[in-house]
């Protein structure tokens, strides 16, 4: 399919899907950029900021596709929507820890590793499926993103496995982070209310199939590092795909749009 051959119902479903994926990358990239200068060592600061930059680039690609579908300029999409118009999963908007990125940040590296690793695995599954998307511009974007995503996945996997099999303190902190992320990670694994239309048009695989791939992977990974499998990933704080969000998103968006919103009409 191309832009011209989409039926209205398909187009609406495609737009929903693009918001979900664009917002996931946009918000998690923001949380990553807050870590700048605070990572465990300088080499990691370099690597992590590169990953965050790539993810911002991926969000940008999805927003451009939305722009092409008549959703307005990508910059307005990124900077001027209200929190209830965002479709990212709730766990991705959560703050990195107490404090702010400029003042007294008490950020939790275990949470960063777990959240990013879990997300990278899902993103890989999603991209594998999108390569065969019926919407050709999306399939093309996915192929572009995959070349970078492969490295992100490796990066977080190394961190995850290392810390999960190291000192008792590290294992304790990592398990606490796994438990925390598990409570809401179900929100990443869903396609939201337009799920049936999204799947029917073959934009992406069925969410149940992709979810199974993710849980299979984690049953194996957790076994490998000697941790218990916590059962079905949950969605305790609601579904971000429905526009349900926490105050953490509000705070993120007001930072992200602070300058742009002062004058969206001018050149910056």
């Amino acid at each position: 399919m191309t832009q011209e051959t989409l039926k209205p119902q398909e187009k609406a479903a495609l737009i929903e899907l693009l918001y979900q994926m664009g917002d996931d990358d946009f918000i998690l990239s923001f949380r990553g950029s807050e870590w700048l200068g605070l990572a465990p060592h300088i080499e990691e600061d370099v690597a992590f900021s590169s990953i965050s930059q790539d993810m911002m680039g991926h969000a940008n690609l999805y927003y451009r596709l939305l722009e092409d579908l008549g959703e307005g300029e990508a910059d307005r999409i990124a900077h001027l929507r209200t929190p209830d118009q965002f479709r990212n999963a709730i766990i991705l908007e959560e703050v990195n820890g107490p404090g702010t990125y400029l003042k007294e940040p008490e950020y939790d590296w275990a949470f960063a590793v777990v959240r990013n690793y879990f997300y990278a695995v899902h993103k890989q599954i999603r991209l594998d499926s999108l390569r065969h998307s019926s919407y050709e511009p999306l399939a093309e974007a996915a192929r572009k993103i995959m070349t970078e995503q492969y490295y992100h996945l490796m990066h977080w996997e190394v961190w995850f496995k290392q810390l999960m099999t190291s000192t008792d303190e590290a294992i304790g902190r990592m398990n606490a982070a796994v438990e925390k992320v598990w409570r809401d990670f179900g929100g990443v694994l869903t396609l939201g209310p337009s799920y049936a239309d999204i799947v029917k048009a073959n934009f992406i695989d069925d969410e149940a199939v992709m979810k199974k791939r993710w849980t299979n992977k984690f049953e194996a990974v957790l076994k490998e590092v000697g941790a218990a499998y916590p059962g079905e990933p949950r969605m305790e704080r609601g579904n971000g795909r429905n526009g349900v969000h926490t105050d953490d998103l509000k705070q993120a968006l007001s930072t992200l749009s602070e300058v742009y919103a002062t004058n969206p009409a001018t050149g910056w």
Partner: protein
Amino acid sequence: MTVGVSFNQLSEEEKMQHFLDRINAGEKIEPDDWMPEDYRLQLIRLISMHGISEIMGALPEKEWVPKAPSLHRKLAIMAKVQDEMGHGQLLLRVAEDLMAPLGKTRHDIMEDLFSGKLKFHNVFHMDAPTWGDAGIIAWLVDGAAIISQSMMLDSSYGPYARALKRICAEEVFHAQHGESIILAMAEGSPEQRQMLQDALNRWWESLIMFFGPKSAKETGNSNADKNIMYKIRTKTNEDLRQEFFTKYIPRIWSLGLTIPDDTIRFDEETQMWIYKDADWSKFKQIVSGNGPQSQNRLDLRRRSYKNNEWVREALAAKKAI
């Protein structure tokens, strides 16, 4: 030069003479080559300060990474701060090699930073309260850095010269990114132009300070002169400052901005810029950790160092297996 096996049998004076002959002939010194202790210490001082300044230098821009006012600008500033961290990493590795024979490691560099013993560049102690500051930093601070670093591209110490080659190539992109922000704001709304002018006013004295004081007399510090003798650097602080003026003052004026110094002018007779000098006692205060943001930014690094202690321990434990 044929010294070969007998080199170790030379007296200290002969080794020193041999070393000076090499650098005077334009040869590069490599990490495992013999070098006078003083040369090693000068390099450690210079390179660890440079490296840590790159790292601390990412912090004034940190605030503006998420706040950058478009997706394009967000991507560009993310790329820039990532480069700066990369420069820091590259330079600390060069410093670490030099420190190894003294039994010191990166841990010592970080400790020296936290204790205030290792200083970082004056500009990175300052406030950056608006997006205009992010533009001025990338355009003029990086522009100043290009001028002072290009001079050392031919440094007698090979690993430093090679690191600088890569760094300078990237700095050019940073300055272009800065210039592009500045141009957009200069051509924008009256509020944007005002924001830009305010940022220039805030940064001007820091930019004068960037190159350091005019001569040893003012600070009692002769490191710059020593580094010239060792061919680590080739120009004086004032040479560099004048070069900066010549390159940037006409550009600043052509944008319709005002330099906050009404005495500044080019003197045809001496072929030098006349300008109001910085307050060097203030400079001393700033680099000693008493600038407006010194302690906040050090606090960010100290805090993360402490919060991530368990990660370093976990990695060390994995290595030990």
